[in-house]
């Protein structure tokens, strides 16, 4: 394989070292996604079975769901898939910088989706009084969408680590500290992203409890001051860690890693389209 690394052109659809020409990692991911289909298939079936056999006095999903918010987060997730596809194309062409920006955008969009879900869960529990234990709808809804949310969260984590990985110095580099840099970079980025999520939800919360914008802003700044400071520190650290420091060990040969991750990300999106259809839209038929 090392001999291929030197050559400029790599056929991303054929790996000469395997019997079929399909790269091992891609085949592994396809097989895993087949398995994951069955995970979600079981959860969605559970939801649909109980939709057909609702208990007497159960909750009406139409009163609870807010299709506007969910349509927005669905759109954002679809756009994240677009950015993921661009990231794969970029690294296949060896364009590390473009790949990094696309990865960051994918992470950002994924995070918006997760934020919407946190908001939605919070809203359903506190405003609509649907909890995981007080109704069968809550039981199946939170378990199904929560499992999907976990998949998105794992995807965001993976994307983040891949982004940080793209700064690993090339072999032969004299940067002895690259390993600790990688760890700190990952911690800073993940911490920063979580804080951004917290701050955004804090802002939404403030806007909801304080009708006047000025009062809301004041409430927000008071409640989220530390978090805001944390965001600045973490993002500053990220910028510092991502400054150019010579050749990196991230190039066309790693396209397969980004592509496998992309397959996972697209799959999680497709699952969401199914969930959006059969859990939300089906109720409005």
């Amino acid at each position: 394989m090392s001999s291929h690394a030197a050559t400029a052109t790599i056929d991303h659809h054929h790996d000469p070292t395997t019997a079929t020409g399909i790269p091992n990692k891609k085949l592994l991911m396809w097989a895993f996604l087949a398995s994951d289909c069955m995970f979600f298939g079981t959860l969605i079936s559970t939801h649909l079975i109980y939709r057909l056999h609702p208990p007497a006095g159960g909750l009406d999903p139409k009163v609870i769901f807010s299709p506007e918010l969910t349509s927005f987060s669905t759109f954002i997730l679809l756009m994240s898939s677009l950015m993921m596809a661009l990231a794969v194309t970029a690294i296949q062409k060896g364009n590390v910088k473009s790949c990094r920006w696309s990865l960051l955008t994918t992470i950002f969009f994924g995070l918006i989706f997760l934020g919407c879900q946190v908001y939605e869960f919070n809203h359903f529990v506190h405003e609509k009084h649907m909890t995981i234990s007080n109704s069968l709808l809550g039981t199946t809804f939170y378990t199904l969408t929560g499992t999907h949310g976990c998949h998105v969260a794992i995807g965001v984590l993976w994307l983040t680590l891949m982004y940080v990985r793209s700064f690993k110095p090339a072999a032969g580099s004299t940067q002895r500290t690259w390993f600790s840099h990688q760890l700190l970079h990952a911690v800073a980025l993940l911490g920063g992203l979580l804080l951004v999520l917290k701050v955004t939800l804090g802002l939404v919360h403030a806007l909801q409890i304080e009708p006047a914008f000025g009062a809301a802003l004041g409430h927000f700044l008071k409640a989220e001051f530390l978090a805001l400071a944390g965001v600045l520190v973490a993002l500053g650290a990220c910028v510092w860690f991502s400054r150019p420091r010579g050749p990196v060990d991230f190039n066309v040969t790693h396209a397969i890693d980004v592509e496998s991750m992309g397959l996972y990300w697209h799959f999680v999106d497709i699952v969401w389209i199914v969930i959006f259809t059969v859990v939300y839209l089906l109720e409005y038929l």
Partner: protein
Amino acid sequence: MDASAKTAYLTKEELAPAKPKLLSHPSAKTGLMGWLTTVDHKKIGFLYGFFALIFFLVGGFEALLIRTQLMVPNNDVLTAQQYNTLFTMHGTTMIFLAVMPLSSAFFNFIMPLQIGARDVAFPRLNAFSLWTFVAGAIILNIGWFLPTATHGAPDGGWFGYAPLTSKQFIPKHSIDYWVMGIQLLGVASIAASLNFIVTIINLRAPGMTMMRLPVFVWMTLITSFLIILSFPAITIALVELMMDRNFQTSFFEVSGGGMPILWQHLFWVFGHPEVYILILPAMGIISEILPTFARKPLFGYPIVVFSGACIGFLGFAVWSHHMFTTGLGTVATAAFSLATMAIAVPTGVKIFNWIGTLWGGHIVMRTPMLFALGFVWMFMMGGMSGIMHAAAPADSQQQDSYFVIAHFHYVLIGGSIFALLAGLHYWFPLMFGRKVSEFWGKLSFWVIFVGFNVTFFPMHFLGLNGMPRRTFTYDPNLGWNTANFIATMGSYVLGVGMFIYFAVLTYTFFKGERVKKDYWDGRTLEWSIDNPPPEYNFRVIPTVHARDGWWYEKHHRAEIEKEKSAHAQAEEEHGGIHMPFGSIWPFVTSVGLLVGAVGITYFDSDWSPGIHAKLGVSLVGGGIMFIGIYFWSLEGNEGYHLHLDQDGRPIADEPHAKH
């Protein structure tokens, strides 16, 4: 770790100059670190087999206790509670900790050798599967060592029917161990199966087309697909059960609108393919042994392969025949009845292929052949009683009776276990370079064979006379006394047979007579290498010219010699034999899973007491797992190159980067 234990050719310390110490590749090949960091499919296969055999003996001991309790009416060797625990753990242990990992041991050890590969596609993922299996086994059995009043070993049956497993009926943690244990075993099985699928599809030697794969490899592939497609159903069912127990959801809670029947559907959507996960590897082993000892190629190879695939497909369409008495409705019952009868067809086809293989052959009666022939006969008997269950009206009489026990022990012992025992004898000379004594091997076969039949044949009559499953004792006036006594005596004979078998195997492992390569004059590629197999498996990756690849090589020596020396030279020019480095991180990841899962088993429906400790343990476990995965990905998948001298001994090696 141990410098003196290192072999001469493994002296690398650091790869890239800037590689941190934490990510340096372990080089120990022996000792504890050698085993914990191994990524060699043969060592991993050996460990799978080692743990599986230990749990096989544990499960067998549990069975003997069950039979002792049932020896005479109104016996009081065990309490009802102990009996529940024992039959639950006997079933769970035998299925998940004995037969599946023993099959996995053969998949690991034999399959790469049969396709002409130097390892599996993802060696470190393979190590992760092994250690996660061990973690699952620990959690499943941890309850034995904890107080029975609040913990105890799992006691809800291997099927864990709702609502028996709810907090209301089993408030103690025994069910939580069962849930988390099977979850981890599922993770291990799925990870291993993904690896096998990629290995079989992508790592075949040149010329090894799909229709030249040995049948055992085909059955490994089909079994792996069954595992990745059926385990998700049980995983989600267990998640739902866990949510019911710890978060007051109502998936299976009638009071909240849940339906316990859903559990049965989800369980058997997994549970029936699981039956084929247990038997298909056995069919593969038998399809290797019969031709070798009948001195003939396998009769109707494509038919054997396609009927195996057919069983795999239909295996997903018959689950409700476990539920005929639940009132599915006439249409569903008729459909599942038909599908169940249909699945007997490809199974029967295989039996005829095996008979066709034997027909007109020069049959060599060695120990593996005896077990294989025993398999064909006993498995067929199990299939006969199986087809009786397919008729729904008959099944409603047999449901939950000892007739069912007789049926599935004929297919699981007479089928799976006989084939696995045959496989151990068959591949022992290859794995360890020693042969098992024919006298003791054959003696163990006959004792096992007689003991098995004496134990389980009377159970057919017990079942038809109305003896129900899962009852810890019975009254003397029901007409079940004699048959139960005979069955218990038979089980002791079976126990003695197993003792002889394993005592002989252990003796042979240390002191057995050494044999040269290709001891049985085999046909498939695994016999083309020295025994025990060297770490790199093949000096030269073989080129396959025929379905029985090694047989062809043996009969075209000159042509093969020329081809091999050319390939050896080409490989040497490309840098030599590529080998993967060992790694500790898969083990660390599994330890993290174990710690996290133990934390989760301690959760309760009442969250307040000790929540910080429980949450803390779970999070620490999750953290260890994350560190394991992250370092695993950061250490990289470089390997090193091996150069061999004329006798196949390594002379030098050099690290190189691999992407």
